[in-house]
């Protein structure tokens, strides 16, 4: 029987990238972006390498104050639902060609990301004890793990109009490995006066492809090159409105899609509840010959089942609204609002300035408010001498950092999210914009 469960596949927002329209990879964030070149080619492994790490709960400087850990402060700064994220994406290939007023593209990307979501109540429970929850409950339902490894095949199309640019990308997703923990219910109740503890659990761990042999990555990749058992699809849609020469407004919705996991699937389910209301003291040699075996009682309170039902995970959708003001031909002011949902809705806002030097160099500086943190200064650099286009983009340059006792480990002190994308594209044929006709001087 097909057993459908709906879970999330991960992706991470990139705020600065969407403003870098002259780089092909900006279409990952802004599908209606109009590039500067007729042709863009991305070669395997060098076209784009992305890495990101995030902890939405607290920064290092919120965890450590002075010379001591201040866990209470870190808890105070955390939200009800938090997560830690790490991801690596590598582009294998891309090709984009201009055809009349449209751009057609094709790309293949390899994506791996992992997310551990932790509720604030869990950390509070462990550090501050359970008394704070008396008469209430510690809500641990958002505790979870998500891991994904999949390949994305995308076909993109952008049409440039007088006022409107419309674009989109249809993506086929080839899933390899997935692990997903979902809790419908996980909480610990503490009774008001008597502090009776009641634990309720209704959750599941779904996995696909976890029994593969990863010891030889080359062999693994070869064996799974044509493995299309776990199939999915997603799409991006975007539109840009050119109000006038100065103002541009764009909207996009990315990653609407799913992957259906069908190969090497396992489901581990646990459901039940138990209450501990104190030791049931028995008078020695009393008439009551029963005795409470707390271990057995705990085991019997929770029902554990293993199944092998296929399941579906959803990609995390992202929504962007952008505005661009052309201060000059080479200087632009940018702004965006974005929204994503993972366990909770999260919004971000970015402002930035782009400065181009000729056609060779452009620098984009941004400042993003994200995960209740203002300390996200981002940068985008594009260097384009000839057909080689080198780029680097990051949403968060380390504003405050220090080296740990190990010289190569840098500790970002005030950042919650660090990411960067770097790569080399090959671009051909700069698109020349028609000059405006001026009235002849009399």
């Amino acid at each position, binding site marked *: 029987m097909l057993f459908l469960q709906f879970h999330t596949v991960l992706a991470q927002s990139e705020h600065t990238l969407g403003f870098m329209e002259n780089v092909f990879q900006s279409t990952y964030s802004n599908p209606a972006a109009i590039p500067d070149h007729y042709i863009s080619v991305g070669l395997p492994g060098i076209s784009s390498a992305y890495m990101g790490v995030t902890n939405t709960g607290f920064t290092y400087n919120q965890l450590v104050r002075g*010379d001591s850990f201040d866990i209470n402060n870190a808890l105070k700064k955390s939200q009800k639902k938090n997560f830690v994220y790490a991801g690596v994406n590598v582009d294998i290939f891309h090709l984009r060609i201009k055809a009349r007023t449209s751009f057609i593209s094709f790309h293949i990307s390899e994506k791996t990301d992992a997310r551990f979501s932790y509720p604030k109540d869990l950390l509070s429970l462990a550090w501050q004890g359970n008394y704070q929850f008396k008469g209430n409950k510690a809500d641990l339902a958002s505790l979870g793990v998500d891991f994904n490894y999949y390949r994305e095949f995308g076909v993109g199309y952008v049409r440039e109009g007088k006022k409107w640019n419309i674009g989109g990308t249809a993506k086929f997703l080839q899933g390899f490995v997935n692990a997903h923990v979902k809790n419908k219910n996980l909480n610990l109740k503490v009774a008001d006066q008597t502090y009776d503890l009641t634990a309720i659990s209704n959750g599941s761990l779904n996995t696909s492809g976890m029994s593969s042999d990863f010891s030889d990555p080359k062999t693994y990749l070869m064996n799974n090159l044509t493995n299309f058992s776990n199939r999915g699809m997603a799409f991006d849609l975007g539109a840009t409105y050119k109000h006038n020469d100065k103002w541009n407004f764009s909207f996009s919705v990315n990653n609407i899609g799913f992957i259906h996991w069908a190969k090497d699937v396992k489901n581990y389910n646990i459901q039940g509840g138990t209450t*501990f209301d104190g030791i049931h003291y028995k008078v020695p040699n*009393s008439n009551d010959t029963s005795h409470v075996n707390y271990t057995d009682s705990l085991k019997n309170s929770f029902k554990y089942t293993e199944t092998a039902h296929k399941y579906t995970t959803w990609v995390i959708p992202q929504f962007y609204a952008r505005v661009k003001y052309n201060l000059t031909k080479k200087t632009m002011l940018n702004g965006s609002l974005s929204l994503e949902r993972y366990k909770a809705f999260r919004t971000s806002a970015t402002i930035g300035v782009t400065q181009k030097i000729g056609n060779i160099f452009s620098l984009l500086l941004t400042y993003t408010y994200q995960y209740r943190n203002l300390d996200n200064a981002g940068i985008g650099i594009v260097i384009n001498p000839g057909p080689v286009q080198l780029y680097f983009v990051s949403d968060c340059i380390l504003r405050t950092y220090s080296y740990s006792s190990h010289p190569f480990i840098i500790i970002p002190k005030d950042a919650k999210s660090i990411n960067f994308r770097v790569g080399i594209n090959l671009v051909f044929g700069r698109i020349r914009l028609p000059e405006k006709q001026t009235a002849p001087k009399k």
Partner: protein
Amino acid sequence: MMKKNILYLIAIMAVFAGCVKKEKFISPTLPNWQPEIGVPLVNSQLTLSDLIKERNNGNISLSTDTNGLYLLTYTDTAFSAIAQDIVKIPDQVYAVPAFPLTSNQVLLDSIVFNGQGTLTQADLKAGDLSFNMLTTDLAENFTVTLTFPTILNKATNAPFSVSKNSGMQASFSLTGNFAGYDIHFKPGGNQFDFNITITGATAGTMSGTLNITNIQYSLLQGSFNSIPIGVMASESDVSIFKNLFQGNIYFADPRVEFDFESSFGVQLTPNKQYFQTIYQNNSFDNMNGGDLEPSANKVIAPATTIGSTTTTVLTVNNANSTDGGGLVSLKTALSKGPQKVKYAVNPVLGNMPGFIKDDSKITIIGKLIIPFYGRVTSYSLQDTFAIKIQHTDSIQFADFYIKTTNNVPLELRLQVYFVDTTTYARIDSFFTGAIPLLKAPIVDLNGAIISAGIDDQTVTFPHARIKPLEKANKLIVKATMQTPNPGSQDVKFFKTNNLDIKISMHAKFDIPLVK
């Protein structure tokens, strides 16, 4: 234009670079872990049957009646002597006067029974006959035959008869044994005939003495006078009062049952000698013995058939044991907390017909039955336990929440003392004041519980109170109990009475994570 753009770029980069800051890394230390927890400790439902186990240790038993009411029973047994040691037929002597040998003699004997009654039959299992004769003017040999027409062989029904030839002797004896013979006495009691038959004598005279000795009976039938069978006494150690530390226990409905098991075929009267309670200072009270008192006119029923036993139960209870006439009632005596209860009776065989077997006896099983129905005022118990309290530096405070639902008809005041026996110092007490731990339930006039006593309280231990407890090496627990409406109402204790105790703790710790 290009220059302007470059200037813009440099300005932006300069501003941006100024915002990047490198700080010196300091390895952070771990703070103390200060969790605040609430945890349930104990949640017990106890019934009295868990706490008080029914048992039977021979003389003392704790049981319940059909309603589950607890009964404490002290049992003791007294045995009487057997009848053949009490009621005896002494040796008999009959002087036969001189008579001529030419005639037969029919003589009537009347046995001496020591005023013990009038017998109709005596079954003998032993008895020696000797007839010592003295003759004069004897002319020839002759034969003497002695016959008892009403002393019959049990098996053949033939009368007892013995013969002997004189052998020309002036004096000779004729002997016999009565074992297996029944004496059937003539109406009027205690008399039987015997015949002396002479054969072959033509002259002379004879006289003699008839002796019947070592008479042992297996059964006597007839009417018996008042014969006391001997003093039967017993004493019970009433240990429930021995653990009395301080206070009074008052039992509302104590009773004593005397089971008189009699194999006498004659009713007896108890004939109380004394019925007393002995106190710790060796003083005593004479109690009203209820059915044992002469005024009660109670008798111990006779056995209905030979060889059987009949049990007669005589009781002492609130109805028949009252204060007055120099005697105190059982209830009053027990309320004083005696150490012993003792009694003695000397049952007397009734002045009436019946039977007595040689092994007839009386066994008295005396039971002091104390139903757990009564009242307690300020009954105290104390016990001591060894303790060791450590690592209190990590505890900032500990509050204990105690909730009790009491369906046992007792109010309990508990105090726990932490003491240092090396310095004889009392360090602290758990409760600040002897406050009720168990609130008494509401009981009706019959002593049954209407509604439970529910109470809850919180005992606070800040760190300043906890730290000194490390010096304590002993815990003294003192419990004072009393029944509801402080000691003014009788209550009943059933095995189904129950007590729920819930203890929870709210505590905060301060635990260093770095040594």
